[in-house]
């Protein structure tokens, strides 16, 4: 039985395909259309899923859409009832468009996939899709499940209990009281974009002091002892205006909101630190409440807020749960998978085959390309290259890494979710003191304060980080072991302390001596594991830099053509693609082409 899950029309449209309860394929539409966070109907992702399974659309038994448009419509109308008169312009601006494009999903599916497909369409709830994506692929028979995002149809946070194939919702928090939206408000306040800038805000937070924490708790959000929250809507405008906040919030904070690309001053780092702290307090309280409600030892997380890996790191240490599993595609893309899984397990018992093994297959659920395809692309794009044996490729790549070269690493199936996990990655030597700056400015063309994540051999995690469990999806932040740190005890400053050497793996050590760890297991990614092992054998370091294979504003590369283009038009030193090694010195790029490439993507 084939089940297709679809999420669409908000941000990060995606499709996922199951054969019975096995995940065959999952991918975000943005990777194919090359439009970051593409919200269009994921027709290309659907077609890819069908290709991967080698089936036609008519062989699909069920199609599940990740949310219920009628419930969503009722929330939109009830919001306008609550904000009658002052929300008129927002209403006239958005409501007709909503009806035209987003409400009549069955009609849209009929138009795009045909009548036969539309007849197989069912709808699930947004948060149930998130809950399913968090629990069903997890390695737990029994777990508390928490979903936190901006807003689903009505819910903004849900606590549920998962047992076997059953998910029972215990508590919900409703719009507009949303920890996700609260975080987004401050993302915009600090000059970043909603739905992509939250990550930057989290990276900025350690440069600041939580000076506004009390103000936020006193005036903006009431946090109850059980973790539920109430926003003071006097300061937020998102219910009745396209802008998330107005002058009243700026007056309260005491500084104007930052415009994007203007200099980042210390005050904004302090704001980031404050909202990060408040978010952690809320998330921790919700988790503790979920524990008392469910009495479970395990916790599963999904929803956009679950991508806040700093908060996840604290949950791991302080929430009282023994184990935590976080869906790697925690944003709305993952709901496509959740919706499909929920459909399957609504009529099938679920057993966890082996504890500690989830069913995400490392999240390597996207397309892969044969050497033949890669070679064709290399020839088409006019590159000089060398074909190597797999072992030689690993040896030569490791040796380039040792010499502080920055390498595009394109292997196997593309990752599902926002992180590159070693198949569509740009990698570098974490021991290099200059590489963070160089990679941010010359390769990613992004803000220089942004940290890079380390990939570390699973068996060596504890030698580097204070982390006692694997973190395969780069969703946990952990402190670098103290014996590796060069601690000067002085609070960091955003304007002066960005590029200090803080440990013996400086390129991945953030300003607060933490890192967003990816543990690499031999079982899920043998080739990437072999590369880091080889690097370890020649440098004695089991850690490398891993950042997504793209530039700022560009979706992560999907095809060999995307990768070659990105390699050609950035200052990367080499590209290891399939069994081919391409060197920059043999393929120089010119400045105009690079500028044109950078400007072809809207800055995120």
């Amino acid at each position: 039985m084939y089940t297709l899950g679809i999420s669409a029309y908000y941000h990060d449209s995606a499709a996922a395909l199951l054969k019975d309860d096995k995940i065959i394929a999952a991918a975000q539409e943005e990777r194919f259309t090359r439009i970051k966070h593409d919200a269009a109907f994921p027709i290309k992702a659907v077609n890819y899923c069908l290709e991967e399974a080698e089936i036609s659309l008519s062989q699909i038994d069920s199609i599940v859409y990740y949310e219920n448009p009628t419930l969503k419509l009722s929330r939109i109308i009830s919001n306008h009832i609550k904000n009658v008169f002052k929300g008129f312009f927002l209403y006239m601006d958005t409501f007709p468009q909503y009806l035209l494009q987003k409400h009549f999903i069955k009609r849209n599916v009929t138009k795009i996939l045909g009548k036969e497909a539309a007849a197989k369409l069912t709808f699930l709830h947004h948060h149930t899709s998130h809950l399913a994506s968090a629990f069903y692929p997890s390695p737990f028979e029994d777990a508390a499940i928490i979903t936190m995002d901006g807003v689903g149809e009505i819910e903004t946070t849900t606590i549920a209990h998962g047992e076997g194939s059953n998910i029972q919702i215990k508590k919900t928090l409703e719009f507009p009281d949303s920890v996700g939206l609260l975080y987004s408000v401050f993302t915009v306040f600090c000059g970043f974009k909603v739905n992509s800038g939250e990550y930057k805000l989290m990276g900025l937070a350690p440069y600041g002091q939580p000076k506004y924490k009390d103000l936020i708790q006193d005036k903006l959000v009431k946090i109850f002892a059980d973790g539920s929250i109430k926003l003071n809507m006097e300061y937020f405008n998102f219910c009745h205006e396209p802008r998330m906040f107005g002058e009243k919030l700026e007056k309260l904070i005491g500084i104007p909101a930052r415009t994007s690309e203007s200099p980042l001053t210390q005050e904004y780092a302090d704001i980031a630190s404050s909202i990060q702290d408040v978010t952690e307090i809320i998330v921790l309280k919700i988790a503790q409440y979920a524990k008392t409600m469910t009495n479970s030892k395990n916790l599963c997380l999904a929803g956009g807020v679950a991508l806040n890996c700093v908060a996840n790191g604290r949950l791991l240490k302080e929430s009282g749960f023994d184990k935590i599993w976080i869906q790697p595609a925690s944003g709305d893309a993952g709901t496509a998978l959740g919706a499909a899984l929920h459909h399957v397990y609504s009529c099938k018992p679920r057993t966890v085959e082996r504890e500690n093994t989830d069913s995400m297959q490392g999240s390597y659920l996207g397309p892969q390309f044969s050497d033949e395809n890669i070679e064709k692309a290399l020839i088409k794009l006019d590159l000089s290259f060398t074909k190597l044996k797999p072992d030689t490729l690993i040896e030569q790549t490791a040796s380039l890494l040792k010499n502080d070269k920055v390498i595009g690493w394109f292997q196997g199936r593309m990752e599902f979710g926002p992180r590159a996990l070693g198949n569509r990655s740009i990698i570098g030597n974490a021991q290099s003191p200059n590489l963070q700056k160089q990679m941010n400015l010359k390769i990613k063309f992004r803000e220089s304060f942004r940290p890079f994540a380390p990939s570390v051999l699973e068996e060596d995690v504890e030698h580097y980080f204070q982390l006692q469990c694997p973190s395969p999806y780069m969703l946990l932040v952990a402190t670098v072991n103290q014996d590796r740190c060069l601690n000067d005890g002085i609070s960091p400053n955003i304007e002066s302390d960005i590029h200090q050497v803080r440990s013996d793996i400086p390129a991945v050590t953030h300003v607060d001596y933490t890192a967003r760890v990816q543990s690499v297991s031999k079982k899920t990614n043998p080739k990437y594991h072999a590369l880091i092992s080889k690097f370890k054998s020649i440098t004695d370091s089991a850690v490398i830099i891993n950042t997504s294979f793209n530039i700022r504003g560009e979706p992560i590369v999907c095809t060999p053509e995307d990768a070659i283009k990105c390699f050609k038009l950035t200052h990367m030193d080499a590209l290891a693609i399939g069994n081919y090694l391409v060197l920059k010195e043999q393929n120089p790029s010119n400045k105009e082409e690079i500028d044109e490439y950078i400007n072809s993507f809207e800055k995120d």
Partner: protein
Amino acid sequence: MNTSTLLKKIKYVLLYIFSLIIYLFYIVPVGIIARLYKKPLKQDSNWS
């Protein structure tokens, strides 16, 4: 202007008129009534 563009434009206008009707004859009256009956603030929890 060809026929399909014209039809599209007519569709848009009708949609905006329909939305306005919903606003004036549903959202406004219900919104006014809702203002008269404000729910009491929850004191120690906001979970549903």
